[in-house]
Each structure stands twice: as C-alpha cells, then as structure tokens.
C-alpha cells in the first residue's frame, strides 16, 4: 500500500481518465455495432460479418410484414401500458410521499418487491396464473404484464421527484381561493409534469424492449424482441438493425429535447 500512497495525484487521475474512457467505449461498442450493421449488405442470411456498405436496408424497412406487425404490436403495447402505468403509478407515489397512513412502510416495500424479483420469475409466475385461470395469452395478457412491471419503476421515479415538492405552493393556492381541483391542475400538475414525462419515457422504453416477461406471456403473438429472438437461428434481417437504430435515435432525441427544454425553463426563471 505504501506505493499506492505515493502515486502522485496527476498520474492517478490520468489513469482514471483513461479507465473511464475505456469503460464508456465498452458500454457503447455494441450500440455502435448494431447501428453499423444496419448499413451492411450481408452475404447470405446472417448479418454477423461485415460485407459491404449499403443504404438498402433503410429503404426496405417495411419489406417483411411479420416484422412490421411485430414493431406495430410493440409500439401499441408500449403506448397503452405506459399510459396506464404512469397514471396509477403517479397516484401511488403521491399517496406514499404526501400522506401518512398506517401501512405506509409496508406499501413502500411491496411496491419495491417486483423490482427485486428476477424477470424470469415475474414472467413465469404470471404464466402459471394465466394458465390456471385459462386466460388466453396474447396482446391483453402482455398489456397486463407490462403495466405490472412498469408501475414499480414509475412509483420509484415519481417518489424521488415528489419528495422535493414545496407543499406551501398548494397551501398558497388554497388560501387564494382555488378549489382542490383547480389547485391540482394549475399548480401541482405543471410542477410534477417533468417527473411524469421522465417516468413515461422510462416505462415506454422498458416495455418496448422487454423480452423475458413477454416471451412467457405472448402466446402466439410476436413483439419486436420476440421477432428478433425467433430469427436468431435463421439469421436476423438487417432491417431489424435499422428499426433498432431508429428507435435509439428517436428516444435519444426526445430525452435531449426534454433536457434542453427544462434547462431553458430553469434559465428563464
């Protein structure tokens, strides 16, 4: 340890910078590969080896109807489950953060449990329930499942946002004669809106990308990840890479725009 003690700050911090840079490259390399191979013109069916550059995959994005249906189903499930999960999760977070009731601690723990359960157990247990109750698997069971795992994420995100909320603003609104309804929509809602947006983006992304729970409860329907999984052996068409790259670019832009808007608003104040 005496050697470590003598490492001057400069060398240590240079080393740290390089290490951090390498770690980031490690994190981003597969994303780069996915995007790169959307411009590949593969020889044969499998898109694992680089052959030659082409834009074709982007022009033939909608060629395989099964893929288009899978993307459509994924977007639909993500949209519906995000709306439901964000709404009921925000209400739950408000109850936990702002009210003192008898089972508050237990409630907090219960909401956290799905996050501490491996996905495979979440998916498998839901499947046993659906099988026992003879509920046919498909789009509906997927929406039920996606809302379930998203609610906990929304509650955790919203709790963090709500705990910084200045309650005196609502009291002030009430003192100035606003009804509870007006207070909620004109004071509370605008303040928590960025938190709601952040939760919704998170839920949408988690739903769109979920494979494990979906695989267990999809029955015969195919979402985008299930489509990819079923194509692994036969070869994944490069259009899949194009779709994935498109999703990535769209979400990243949305998050960036959101961050910029928040910064501008903060600057105006």
């Amino acid at each position, binding site marked *: *340890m005496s050697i*470590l003690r003598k490492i001057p700050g400069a060398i*240590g*911090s240079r080393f*740290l*910078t390089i*290490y*951090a840079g390498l*770690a*980031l490259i*490690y*994190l*981003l*390399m*597969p*994303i780069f590969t*996915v995007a790169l191979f959307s411009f590949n013109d593969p020889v044969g069916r499998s898109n*694992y080896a*680089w052959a030659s550059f082409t834009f074709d995959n982007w022009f033939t994005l909608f060629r395989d109807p099964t893929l288009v249906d899978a993307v459509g189903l994924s977007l639909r499930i993500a949209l519906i489950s995000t709306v439901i999960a964000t*709404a009921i999760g925000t*209400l*739950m977070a408000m*109850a936990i953060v702002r009210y003192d009731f008898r089972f508050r601690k237990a409630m907090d723990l219960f*909401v956290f*449990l*799905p996050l*501490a*359960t*491996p*996905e*495979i*157990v*979440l998916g*498998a*247990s*839901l*499947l*046993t*329930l659906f099988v*026992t109750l003879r509920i046919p698997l498909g789009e509906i069971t997927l929406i039920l499942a996606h*809302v*379930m795992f998203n*609610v*906990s994420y929304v*509650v955790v995100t919203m709790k963090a946002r709500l705990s910084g909320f200045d309650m005196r603003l609502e009291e002030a609104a009430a003192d100035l004669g606003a009804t*509870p309804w007006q207070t909620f929509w004109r004071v509370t809602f605008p303040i928590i809106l960025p938190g709601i947006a952040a939760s919704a983006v998170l839920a949408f992304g988690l739903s769109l*990308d979920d*494979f494990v729970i979906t*695989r*267990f409860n999809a029955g015969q329907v195919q979402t985008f*990840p299930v489509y990819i*999984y079923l194509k*692994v052996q036969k070869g994944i068409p490069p259009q899949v*890479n194009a779709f*994935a*790259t498109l999703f*990535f670019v769209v*979400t*990243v832009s949305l998050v960036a725009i959101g*961050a910029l808007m928040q910064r501008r608003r903060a600057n105006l104040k």
Partner: protein
Amino acid sequence: MGMLRRHPALVPLMLLAPGLLWLVSFYLAPNIQMLASSFWSGTLETGFSFSLNNWTNYTDALSKYQEQYVRSIQYGFAATVLCFIIAFPLAYFIAFKAGRARNVLLFLVVAPFFTSYLLRTIGWRTILGDDSIILGPLKAIGLVDPSARFLDTPFAVIAGIAYNFVPFMILPIYVSLEKIDRRLLEAAQDLYASSWGAFRRITIPLALPGIFAGSLLTFIPAIGDFINAELLGNPGATMIGNVIQRQFLVVRDYPTAAALSFMLMVLILAGVTLYGRILGTDELTSKAI
C-alpha cells in the same frame, strides 16, 4: 368529493387503490399461484392436482438441476464483481472529475438501455466472433492466440451479463459518491491524511450503500438471466434461467418449473438478507443520510 372531505383518511387509500389492485392481481397472486403449482402433480394433458405430498417436486428438481443452480450463482457472482471493477472507477470519475460533462456522461451510461437488449447481446456475438472486426486484427498481429475462442465460453457469458447490467451498478455508486460532502475530504487533507488514506477511510465507507444497492441490482437479474447463456455460451453449460424457460415453454412441466422458479426466488431473498447482515447496511445507510 364531499365524502372525501368528511373522511380525509380515505384520500391516500383511493390514490393507492388502482396500482395496489394491479400489483396484487398480477404480482402477488401469480407468485402465490406459482407456489401452489409447485405442489401439483400431473401433466398438461391429464390435468393437474394439488397435494402437499408433492413436496418431492422440490427435491427432484434440485437433484436434477443442482449443477445449473451452482453455475448461475457462480456466473452471477463473477459478473457482479466484474461490474464493480468496471463501474467504481467510472462512477468515481463522473462524480469527482467530470465537471460540466457529468450529465452527458451519465446519459452515455444509460444509453445502452435505449437499444434492444437482445440486439446488444447479439452485438457481442459479432464482436467476440472468431474472426470479428476486433478479434480478427488482434489475432493477425499476434496479440491474441489465433486458435483462441471467446464465443461459447463461460467468459463470454459472464462478460455479456456484466455488460447488460453494469449501468445498474454505476448509477447507485455514482449517487452515493456524489452525495459525499467534499468538506470531509478537505478536512482529511488538512489533517495530513494521504489521498489513499482519505479514500479508504472516507470515500469507500460513504460509498458502501451505493455499492450494496448496485451489487443487488446487478446480481438479481444476473442470476436469473438466460439470454446471455443462450446467445453467447456453450449449449452444454446452461444456467437455471435456461432450464426454467425450457420447462415452462417447451416441456411444459409446470410443477417442476414452478418449483425451480420458487427456489430461485428463495435463494435470492436469502442471499439479499445475508448480504445485508454482513455489510450491516441498515446502520450504514442511516449514517450516510
């Protein structure tokens, strides 16, 4: 509205009701059903019947798939350690050295989550392939033994798992480092502590809650994962997740599958409790906050 004004205690209950109902129906009930199913006998064709005598489902499953449990624990542990080695210096850099680039770097850390989990893992297949863009040139210049294989090895599976869950390690560690009061470190310096001494006596202890949370958030999904073993590993070296998904979706032996999943959950809960005891995190968390 009138009723709520007269009974204010009802307000939190009503806010909780929809979400609570959802979690009870689709989280709690399924887990109870799974426990019940693990005491079933019979097949999908003949129908299932429940009997407590079927506890042998557990012993049968355990003796048959012990190897996969052990392998999952080993891989999960190795991946968590690897995540920590990657995550701590990066989190430290972002918290203490990144300055204004901090938010951008944090965003890059979570960026992988915005692309498909399956495609990222398949991306590693492309990267680790025998003559891939990375390995091909390394083998050509002799840095890597030409006959070396990375795909289909435990190394590839562990690295894949670590890759997929490392953001869950980085973020909690970053949060706990970022919270450290910088004046504590200045005070240590004023009192002639070496930078290593300050790091060991102040930074590490205060980062422990983050390390604890991060290890759990990586270990739990790691131990139940089956995608990496399936896409990057050798078919002969499966994890417990591969067995569970096969039993549920291919073999459809629900009693065995339910017993296997339930044991996985008990294993994780026991591990979490034990780990918390060893680190004494309750006390640590209260001190750090």
